[in-house]
C-alpha cells in the first residue's frame, strides 16, 4: 500500500525530508512497519526510542496500518 509518512524532529534530520511516500508491502501491524523503517534508516536504532502515530494518535501494540492513514514518526518528545 502507498503511505505518506510525516517526519518530525530528529527523524526528519535522519531521513532528510519532512514527508516521504513509501510503497509498503510488508505486514500491516505497527511492529513490522517499525522494523522496516529501522532497516531502511539504521540511524533510527540510535534513538532512545521512537513511536508511530496513526491518524494523530499513538499507535497501540499490534495496531494495523491502512492505506490513507496519516502516519507520523514520533521521536522522543521534549516539549515544555
Amino acid at each position: 500500500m502507498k503511505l505518506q509518512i510525516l517526519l518530525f524532529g530528529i527523524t526528519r534530520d535522519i531521513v532528510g525530508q519532512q514527508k516521504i511516500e513509501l510503497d509498503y508491502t510488508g505486514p500491516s501491524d505497527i511492529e513490522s512497519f517499525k522494523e522496516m523503517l529501522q532497516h531502511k534508516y539504521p540511524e533510527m536504532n540510535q534513538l532512545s526510542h521512537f513511536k508511530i502515530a496513526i491518524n494523530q494518535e499513538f499507535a497501540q501494540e499490534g495496531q494495523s496500518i491502512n492505506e490513507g492513514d496519516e502516519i507520523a514518526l514520533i521521536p522522543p518528545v521534549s516539549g515544555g
Partner: protein
Amino acid sequence: MSHPHIHITDRPIDTDLVISLVALPSQGGLNVFIGNVRDQTKGKAVLRLEYEAYVPMALSEMNKIAQTTKEQWPQAEIAIYHRVGTLKIGEAAVVIAVSTPHRAQAFAACQFAIDTLKVSVPIWKKEVFEDGEVWVAAHP
C-alpha cells in the same frame, strides 16, 4: 471536543492572558507553571532553542490533558499555551494555569498537566550551541 483555552503559538506567550482565562470568582487558588528557556544545559551555553510541533496531534494530546485534569479535579479550570519556533534565552516555552476553589488541588492539577505534557505531547526542541545543535532527549 476542543478545549477553548489550549493553544500552540509562534508568538511570545502572554502570561497574564493565560492566567485571566482561569481566574474565575469561584476559584480561590490559582497555580501557574512557566517553562522558560535556560541559558545552559549541563554547563554548556545555549544560544537559543528551536521548538517544533506536530500541531494537530499536539493539540489533541493537550486536549486530553485538559480532559483528564477535569476528570481528576472536576472543579479545575485549565489553560495550556505552548510556543513553537525560535525562542531566546528566558522566553517562555509553555505556560499552564490551573484554578480550583482551594489551593492544594491547583498545585496538584498543574503539576499533573506539565508532567503529562512533557511525556505525551508531540513537541520537540533543539538546543543550539556555539558549536552545534542537539535534539533534546533524542539519544540515550
